């Protein structure tokens, strides 16, 4: 009798282990790169990014990459031409007394949107590169912007806003 119970118990343990192994394998299989070859790191650009200091909050669109870089205790928006492997100037976008939080760029590299803290306030601004102009986008109803995403065609922003104790998302059409 003891032998039979032992066998059943052992059989259950094996079955449990097998089930666990199948579950782990299924989970691993689910996320194990089903499309064949691996993506290739873009070494030259990655080296260039590493040289400018820390960088975060990437926005990639068309040939453009916007990131927030930190060097010497100061954060600023950096625009890179990925195809040309070069920095692109954004005169009038960065201010020494502003702290950028989130940035987005459109596929033409003409429009950038930025959430930044300035003089104790958090604001959303739209930058047009050809005009070197910066335009505030008011929060209506009132709220505090945080993260943003820009549509690749530059026609709309999706903005995460703190409002009434909740995070909400507004879609803002750009003229």
């Amino acid at each position, binding site marked *: 009798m003891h032998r039979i119970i032992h066998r059943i118990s052992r059989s259950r343990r094996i079955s449990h282990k097998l089930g666990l192994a199948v579950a782990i394998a299924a989970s691993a299989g689910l996320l194990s790169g089903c499309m064949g070859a691996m993506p290739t790191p873009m070494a030259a650009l990655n080296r260039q990014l590493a040289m400018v200091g820390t960088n975060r909050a990437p926005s990639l669109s068309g040939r453009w990459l916007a990131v927030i870089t930190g060097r010497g205790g100061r954060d600023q928006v950096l625009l890179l031409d990925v195809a040309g492997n070069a920095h692109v100037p954004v005169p009038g976008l960065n201010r020494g007394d502003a702290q950028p939080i989130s940035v987005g760029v459109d596929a033409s590299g003409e429009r950038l949107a930025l959430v930044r803290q300035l003089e104790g306030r958090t604001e959303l601004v739209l930058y047009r590169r050809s005009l070197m102009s910066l335009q505030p986008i008011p929060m209506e109803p009132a709220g505090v912007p945080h993260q943003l995403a820009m549509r690749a065609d530059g026609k*709309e922003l999706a903005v995460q806003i703190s409002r009434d104790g909740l995070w909400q998302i507004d879609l803002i059409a750009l003229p």
Partner: protein
Amino acid sequence: MGLFSRRSVGPLGPLGAEDRQDPAISGNGRFLASVLEQGGKAMVVLQGQPGGQTVALRHLRGHEPHSSPSLSWNGRYIAALVQQGPERVAILEDRATGKLLRLPLPNGSQPARLSLAPDGQRIAIEVTEGGQSRVQLFDLTGQLEPDLPGGLAVQGGPSAP
């Protein structure tokens, strides 16, 4: 209303009040992804626009918390950060074929945010390594068909309740 017209992304449930974070919008504006806090889980929700109908995602469920979704031009590709065991991993789902791509990261680095190029041919991933943030770019040419302006939208089925 001023120069900028706006609309709020509507609630997903009947109760109305929901935390919605980390927005991503497809290049053509037809899809919006965001992270919804519900039942202690942070889940990526994909919605058609402007109607707001939810669209099913095949590979993300069970790998919460999700963060940092990003969409290609027609919404064919959605990339996000998900949890696999103790690891944060960057994945990309092809909604047209149902296939999944896991994006490898250097050992010891944790992904924090990502941004997929609208054509799906590159991806930028912010990783944290030794307390420092840096952005790494990956070339996806040859891995994914380009998702270009004017391409066909992948509608997908409605999300399971």
